[in-house]
């Protein structure tokens, strides 16, 4: 079993600022990899920005914006194998794009259409978890269950800073630690839970300090630095896969956008800080890094991402309306006897 490391409080960082902080690099990443990461970032950014527009146009419902969270998602997923399982919260609603899920499926989810519900086993991506932190025990159970079967898959669960206050986070993290489950506990610390700042959420100096209490290693990383996130996750995944059990990663970023389309943060947020964070957002930071390295990015990457979204929304909107029978379908494997007559009644029969 890997040695249990104490939690780190220092933010790991790879990407410099083109000035005082020098650029680093991640062992083993080729230019191909760097471009692949860029593609992921652009895809997510495009998904997010288009979704806000679609919402304004009334084409999708309420939507949880993940602008400036892309580096955490892209960097961590790039450290996974396809066999590894992803447990997203609503903040990572589009993460399955990185596993090849059509954009239309996720858009349908936000459109409240049943074709937005997928089979987790198709992409090894669990359903989007709406209630805070309740998926952490699921991820622990899946990872533990895989280990019990002698399979090599690892799981990663994404949750926010607010989520660390929930009992479900605690119980899931402890279960994973005790069972030695191959799990990465990935905390997106964007410093807000809707209107509640991190200082009202915890008295801990760093959320990753919680790792110590579960007897597992913790890593704190700059969440706006896609390479640092990748590297940290790769380390955690390797430990998990070789029997070292779970790791908690705290990725520190800042929610520079509203919590969701329905939210107006002006009442509670520091707008100057938001502006500063916006200037330093993660996709631009990575673009400047690539530029400094002299790596040219194909403009087609952005064009293709736009194309993906155009096709996605078109496909979603072309889907026929859901049939009422779906009210009853899938609630059980063996349906309740009442359903048949209830559906008949509903159809006006």
């Amino acid at each position, binding site marked *: 079993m890997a040695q249990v490391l104490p939690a780190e409080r220092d933010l790991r960082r790879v990407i410099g600022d083109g000035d005082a902080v020098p650029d680093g690099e991640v062992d083993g990443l080729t230019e191909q990899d760097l471009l692949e990461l860029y593609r992921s970032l652009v895809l997510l950014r495009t998904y997010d920005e288009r979704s806000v527009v679609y919402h304004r146009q009334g084409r999708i419902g309420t939507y949880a914006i993940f602008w400036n969270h892309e580096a955490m998602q892209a960097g961590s997923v790039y450290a996974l194998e396809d066999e590894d399982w992803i447990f997203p919260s609503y903040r990572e609603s589009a993460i399955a794009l990185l596993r090849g899920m059509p954009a239309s499926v996720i858009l349908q989810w936000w459109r409240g259409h049943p074709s937005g519900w997928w089979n987790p086993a198709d992409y090894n991506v669990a359903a989007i978890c709406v209630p805070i932190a309740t998926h952490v025990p699921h991820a622990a159970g899946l990872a533990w269950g895989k280990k019990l079967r002698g399979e090599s898959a690892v799981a990663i669960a994404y949750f926010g800073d607010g989520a660390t206050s929930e009992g479900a986070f605690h119980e899931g993290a402890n279960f994973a630690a005790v069972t030695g489950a191959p799990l990465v506990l990935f905390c997106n610390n964007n410093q807000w*839970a809707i209107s509640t700042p991190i200082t009202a959420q915890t008295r801990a100096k760093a959320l990753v300090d919680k790792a110590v209490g579960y007897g597992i290693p913790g890593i704190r990383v700059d969440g706006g630095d896609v390479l640092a996130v990748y590297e940290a996750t790769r380390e955690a995944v390797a430990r998990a896969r070789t029997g070292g059990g779970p790791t908690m990663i705290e990725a520190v970023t800042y929610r520079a956008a509203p919590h969701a389309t329905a939210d107006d943060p002006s009442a509670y947020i520091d707008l100057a800080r938001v502006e500063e964070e916006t200037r330093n957002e993660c996709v631009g930071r990575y673009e400047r890094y690539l530029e400094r390295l002299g790596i040219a990015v194909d403009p087609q990457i952005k064009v293709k991402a736009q194309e993906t979204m155009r096709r996605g929304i078109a496909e979603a909107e072309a889907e026929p309306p859901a049939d009422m029978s779906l009210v009853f379908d899938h609630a059980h494997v063996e349906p309740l006897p*009442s359903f048949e007559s209830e559906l008949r009644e509903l159809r006006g029969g």
Partner: protein
Amino acid sequence: MAELTLLEAINDCFHVELGRDPDVMILGEDVGRAGGVFRATAGLRDRFGPDRCFDTPLAEAGIMGAAVGLCMAGWRPVCEMQYDAFSYPSLDQLITHVGRYRWRTGGKMRFPITVRMPYGGGVRAPELHDDSPEAYYVHTPGVKVAIPSTPADAKGLLAAAIRSDDPVVLFEPKLHYRTMRGEVPEGEHVVELGKARLAREGTDVSLIAYGSMVLLCEQVADELAGECSCEVLDVRTLKPLDEDALLATAAKTGRVVVVQEAPRTAGYGAELVAVLAEKAMLDLRGPVLRVTGYDVPYPYWQIEDAYMPSVQRVANAARKLLEY
């Protein structure tokens, strides 16, 4: 009297009650800085300070559990659960402590906790923003439950809950938060717990409901106006139930439809029917019918209307009784 929305009536109540009693405090997720995700608590942090309208950590069981301790320190806590389905983590504290702690002290201590939450569907939201969980709460000993259906009652029942020395849980029909307006008495306004409201008088069929289903029943009454005369009873307090009002309308019309948005099996509607089946048998001219949500997870919103009791389903039930 002012014309207020349901939400404004709740906010108005808080301003009155926090002003009136310095022991009343609000705690919940985003109730302070943001004034609540629906803005039910807007302006209270500024007026009464961050301690009396407190942004808690994101932990519903912690909120409910802390409220128990706050009562022991002399406070009258009002807990907001951000949405119906997000109250479930607090059920353990509710069942094991909120409903039992007074009894556990031999009646020596009081636990004047108010729990309130937006409930119900029809708002085109992602899953778990649409539940009608009242049955879990009503079945819990030591806990009283009320559900307003008008702005005036939203204010009056909340005031009654806050002033009650017993724990009271309030469900607020979020579907009507901003769309329903009504006259609301200014200043102190208390609606006694345990009293139903006759929303509409009628002679042929009784439609019995609470919360957002009351308006639906009134629409059914309109719809059926040419065919029969519907009485609409707004149960208003689910526990304690106003049995007299329930039995009176059953005695008057002899035909009863109970309407509930929650899933059918073991919902609160069953309790209403059971009371009638025990105590109004001789008055009934036919079966007691329920129109309810189905025993399924609340659906994706594109088909949520199919789940919801509709004017048509309720009207059909009423017609069936008339033909009986």
